[in-house]
Structures are given as structure tokens and as C-alpha cells.
């Protein structure tokens, strides 16, 4: 055999061995030592702060889950840049680079785009935070959501508003409804429009609805219109930056309604909201999916968070952290049961999820036939002394509700 023949033989043998190993079931087992989780979050752009907050939940997950389930996780982080197209391309890339499962992306628009990619490529996608109902109404087989839909959010949120009014013996008659006009905001608008007429125990009616761009730099006109509606309180579906601008503008325009109440959106319970606004951030109320401070798992996650982020307060990141953590936990739990990284096996295992020891308020974590979790609950939180405090439900309450807000003047 001369050198050329020898080289040919080596190449042929290597190729055959490679092909054999690629198609061997042993390969799945070999790979199954580690689950590669593609984490898609908006770590820059106008949702950057919340994306980074969610990332803290992802960062602590491998350590906590290793102790809990003995599963090794490799995170593959990608920044969606608060851009739907970027989210789609990053998801494609993560799959090309070998992600076994995708999680994220704290945005309904991005979640819709990633869901299409995941479904086309047959890779499980576990949504941490995104509320637009259509995402789990498409008949997707690889898409799962551990977050309430906008309809559930509004139902929970409006129900808590009723509880708030009863707890404080106040009965506002009118509300002006302001909402962001992105996918999430529109879904919340539809959810509230559909739900509110059926909640006859709520004493108020909406006198005006104003939608606005979440990336708006100036909300003077919007706040002027809302103030002119002369409503008792402001019902607000917001994001973070717009919530800051809006609250500031309310004070500038000397508009002091009974309160600012979110039926289920981020923004007002975030740290940046209190940091940027100081005392005027106080008394704003958010009915949002929240962590249960009393469960063992929450305490474990909180301890891991505080270890990794010694200068940060868990209360400001709690919801983002626990929902992102649970999305990775779902994948890891399925991986452990499936004993494989095969996407179909993983998806089947995720469908059978039944996690009882939770960090999130609500019952056991189970998905329905559409891949939608059921029974996740919201808490009513109010910013008091610069921090969000649970005021309802009573069994989880950390403080007493203050409503109307002390600086209230009849509009």
C-alpha cells in the first residue's frame, strides 16, 4: 500500500465510523449527559433591563437544577435585542449550534416568531414569559408556555382589583385604560375587553382607552388625553421605560387619580421604576404573576440568586427570575425522564410534566393539550417605600393596601 492508498483508506474508515456514530442510538445517550438550553432574552434594546433580569434566573438555573435533579445543563445565551426578526434569526442559529431546547423570550412578538422556528425545526420551545393567547392556539407540537395567557392574566388581574377595592372599602366608578400597542398590549386589550363586561362585581366602567407605542420617548399627548377623561383611576398595561415616562408625565401634568393599577403587566414593580422615579413610584399597583415567597423552592432559588447577585434585591427580579428558572427546570425535568436529547422524546416528556414543588404562585405545573400551563396565579403588589410588596391575596400579603394613593386629588 502506497501513501496515497493509505490516506484513502484512512479517510474512508473515518467517514464510515463518523456516519455510524452519528446514526447510532449510543450517540443520543452520549450526548444526553448534558442538555444544551438555548436561552433567548432581550438583553438590549428597550426591554433590555427586563431581559437582563430574566437572564439572572437562567444563570442560576444550572447550579440549582444540578443539585435538585442531578442534570447537567449548558446554557447557550442569545440576545434578541428587543427585535422580533433578531429573535427569529438567533433561534435559528441556536438550533444550528446544537441547542436541544429553547427557552425565553419575555415578549409575545418574539415568542410567536421563535415558536414558528421551533415548530419547523422540531425543537422544543418552553416560553418563560409571553402572554399573547394565539401562541398556544396554533396546534404547535413543540411549543409550551409556563405563563398565563393574556385572558388568564386579565381575569386574575381584574379579580384582584375587585379584591383590592373590597379590602380598602373604595369603589371607583370610572377608569381610563392606557395600554402599549405591541403584541402583548393588544392581547391584554382584547382580554380586558372580553372579560370586563362579565365581571359584574367590579364597580367601575372604562371611560376612555388610549393605546401608545412602548418605545415612545414622550407621552405628553397620551397623558393629557387620559387626564381629560376625568376618570377615578388609571388602568395601565405597560412596559418599563414607558411606565417611567408616563408616571413622570402624570406628575408634571398634575394628574393625581386614586391610583395607577396594572391588571397584569411588567414595568411598575421593576427596580428601575423605583430607582428612576424615587418617591413618585410609590403606591403604584401591579397585579402580576408572582413568586410564592413561602415555598421551599422559592427559598432555594432566592438563596442562589443572592449568592450570584449579592448587590441585587430578589424582590425586584423575583417574577422574571422564577419564571425563567422554571422554564429551564421544565426542560431539565423532561430530559431526566426522557433520558434523551431527542427532540420528540423531550417534547413528549415536557407534555407529561407534573412539578409540584414550585416557585411560582399557583398549583402543580402541568400543560394542557395545547402546551399551555393552567392555574398560574397573580399577586396584587404595591410599591411601598421603594419596593413592591404583596398586598393580596391575604394569605401571601406582606403589607396592607394603600388605596386611594395619598397624593390623590379628584381629577
Amino acid at each position, binding site marked *: 500500500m502506497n501513501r496515497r492508498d493509505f490516506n484513502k483508506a484512512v479517510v474512508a474508515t473515518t467517514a464510515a465510523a463518523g456516519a455510524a456514530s452519528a446514526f447510532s442510538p449510543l450517540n443520543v445517550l452520549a450526548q444526553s449527559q448534558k442538555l444544551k438550553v438555548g436561552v433567548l432574552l432581550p438583553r438590549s*434594546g428597550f426591554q433590555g433591563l427586563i431581559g437582563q433580569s430574566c437572564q439572572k434566573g437562567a444563570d442560576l438555573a444550572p447550579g440549582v437544577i444540578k443539585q435538585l435533579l442531578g442534570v447537567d445543563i449548558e446554557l447557550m445565551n442569545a440576545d434578541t435585542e428587543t427585535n422580533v426578526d433578531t429573535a427569529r434569526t438567533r433561534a435559528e442559529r441556536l438550533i444550528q449550534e446544537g441547542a436541544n431546547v429553547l427557552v425565553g423570550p419575555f415578549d409575545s412578538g418574539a415568542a410567536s416568531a421563535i415558536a414558528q422556528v421551533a415548530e419547523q425545526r422540531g425543537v422544543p420551545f418552553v416560553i418563560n414569559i409571553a402572554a399573547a393567547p394565539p401562541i398556544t392556539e396554533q396546534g404547535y407540537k413543540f411549543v409550551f408556555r409556563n405563563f398565563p395567557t393574556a385572558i388568564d392574566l386579565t381575569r386574575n388581574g381584574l379579580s384582584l382589583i375587585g379584591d383590592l377595592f373590597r379590602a380598602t372599602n373604595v369603589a371607583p366608578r370610572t377608569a381610563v385604560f392606557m395600554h402599549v400597542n405591541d403584541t402583548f398590549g393588544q392581547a391584554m386589550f382584547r382580554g380586558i375587553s372580553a372579560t370586563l363586561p362579565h365581571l359584574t362585581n367590579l364597580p367601575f366602567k372604562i371611560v376612555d382607552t388610549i393605546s401608545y407605542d412602548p418605545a415612545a420617548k414622550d407621552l*405628553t*399627548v397620551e397623558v393629557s388625553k387620559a387626564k381629560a377623561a376625568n376618570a377615578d383611576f388609571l388602568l395601565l398595561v405597560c412596559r418599563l421605560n414607558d411606565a417611567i415616562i408616563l408616571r413622570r408625565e402624570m406628575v408634571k401634568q398634575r394628574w393625581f387619580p386614586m391610583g395607577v393599577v396594572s391588571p397584569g403587566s411588567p414595568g411598575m414593580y421593576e427596580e428601575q421604576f423605583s430607582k428612576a422615579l424615587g418617591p413618585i413610584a410609590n403606591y403604584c399597583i401591579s397585579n402580576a404573576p408572582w413568586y410564592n415567597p413561602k415555598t421551599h423552592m422559592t427559598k432555594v432559588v432566592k438563596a442562589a440568586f443572592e449568592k450570584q447577585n449579592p448587590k441585587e434585591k430578589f424582590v425586584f427580579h423575583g417574577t422574571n427570575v422564577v419564571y425563567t428558572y422554571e422554564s429551564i427546570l421544565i426542560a431539565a425535568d423532561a430530559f431526566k425522564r426522557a433520558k434523551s436529547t431527542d427532540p420528540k422524546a423531550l417534547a413528549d416528556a415536557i407534555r407529561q410534566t407534573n412539578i409540584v414543588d414550585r416557585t411560582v404562585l399557583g398549583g402543580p405545573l402541568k400543560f394542557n393539550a395545547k402546551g399551555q400551563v393552567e392555574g398560574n396565579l397573580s399577586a396584587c403588589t404595591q410599591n411601598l417605600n421603594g419596593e413592591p410588596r404583596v398586598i393580596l391575596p391575604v394569605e401571601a400579603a406582606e403589607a396592607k393596601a394603600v388605596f386611594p394613593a395619598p397624593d390623590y386629588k379628584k381629577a
Partner: protein
Amino acid sequence: MPLDLVINVTIAGVLTGMVYGLMALGLSVIFGVVRVVNFAHGEMMTVAMYAAVAMFSAWGIDPFLAAIPIAAAFFAFGYLMQAGLINPFITRPEHSQFILMVAVATIMVNGMLMAFGPDARNVQISYQLDSWEIGKILLDKPRVYAAAMALATSAALFSFFKFTLTGKAIRACADNHLGARVVGLDVKHLYALTFGLGSACVAVAGCMMILFLDVTPSIGPGYTLLAFIIVIVGGLGSLTGALLGGVLIGLSEALAGLLIQPSAKSMFGFALLILVLLFRPQGLMGKKP
């Protein structure tokens, strides 16, 4: 619709428009003379906003006072950038100039991300939430101050171009580049001066903007686009046009938000742009080519 609501929104639109005008003035000055479109304009304003935040955080300097050293620093930066970086591109095709300025903008955005992170920042001055109440009319103090500063800066710039020898020389360069060189003007120096002046304008605009706007590294491109709309509506190269365009855009956004739909208000700036391009392509105050 209550009259006081319309008046309040109109006033807010005009005041915001004046600051927009100041921002666009820098772009218009640079294009009018150097004939280079500064695609890093919004990013330069963002850097100025961060500079104002930094000076406020470090020494508690009010952005109005900070505007002076920041404008001076931006003048020097603009001068050096034109002299060292842009002058060699003056005679090159426009797409080369475009790519150059986009590269500068990208470096600025990423530099700001590295230096300040993606968090929104602002200055918490004592009068930030104050307003004057005249009957039912509310005048937002920071916005009024910012508009006054915009007017003062514009007036200073107009006076410079109208009454000083250097200003006249710059205008000569803008009117006839070859003629200016024939009579012995140092065109490259004058171009650099102009870029410096445009940069100083945008620095002042940034210092005013931070009074009522939080800054993140990513807001620049939106303002570059807005500045373009304003100068095209007002007339490329026209200083009065830039101010007028700013006020028109601010006003149209405010009134469209009030009368039609707030979430669609930015659309009306573009609608105005299309109308101007259709019926007066040189802009409202621009000269026909």
C-alpha cells in the same frame, strides 16, 4: 374636546419641536456646507446626553450649565473628526461617506453600551417635575427652558453666519466650493469648523433632551431619522428651515396624537415628509437646485 386640552397639547408640541429643531440644526449646518450627511447624528446626541448625565452624577452640574463644556468638547471632537476622518472622504462617492458615518455611529453605540450598559439613565434635577399653571394651561418648566435654550443657540448660530467674517467665509464655501478655493479660503479648515459647530449644536440639544428624556445607547438611530425628516421638511441646508421643520414635526405629532390616535402619532411626521417631497421637494425653506 376641551379647549384647554388642545392648547396644552399644542404648546407641548411646539416646545418639543423647538428642541427637535435645535437637534436638526446641527445636521442641516453640516450638510449645507460640507455636503456630507451625518448618519451618526442621533448617536452624537446620545453621547452628549450621557455626558450630561455623567457631569450631573459626578458633580451635580445642571445640564444647562453642562451644555457649555460639553458643546466645547463636541466642537473640538467635530473639528478633529472632520479634519482627520471625513475630509479625505469629501471627494469620494456618497456611499463611501455613508458607510463611514454608519461605522462611526456603530462604534459610538457599542462604546456607550460598554461604558454605560443598556440601562436607561436620566438626571433628577430639582425642577424636573415642575410646571407653571396659568389658568388651565400647564407649562412644563424643563421643556420651556429647553425651548428657550434652543432659540438662544439658534440665534447665536444665525448671528455667527450672518455677521462674522468666518461665518461669511463658511457660507461662501457652501455657495461655491471652487470659488472659495480660488479666492484663497482654507476650505478644509472651514469645513472642520462647520462640523465642529454642527456637533456643538447637537451637544446642546442632547443636554436639553436629557431634561425630559431618559437615555439608552439605542435611542440614537431614531433621532437620526427624526433629524433627517426635519431637515428634509424644512429644507436641506437651511437653518431657519430646520427650526421650522422641528416645530412642524413636533406640532403635527402632538395634534395627530390628540385628534386621531396617539399610538400612530409618529406616522404623521412621515406623512408630512411625503407631502413635502411631493409638492416642494427642496423643503419648505430650501432653495431650488
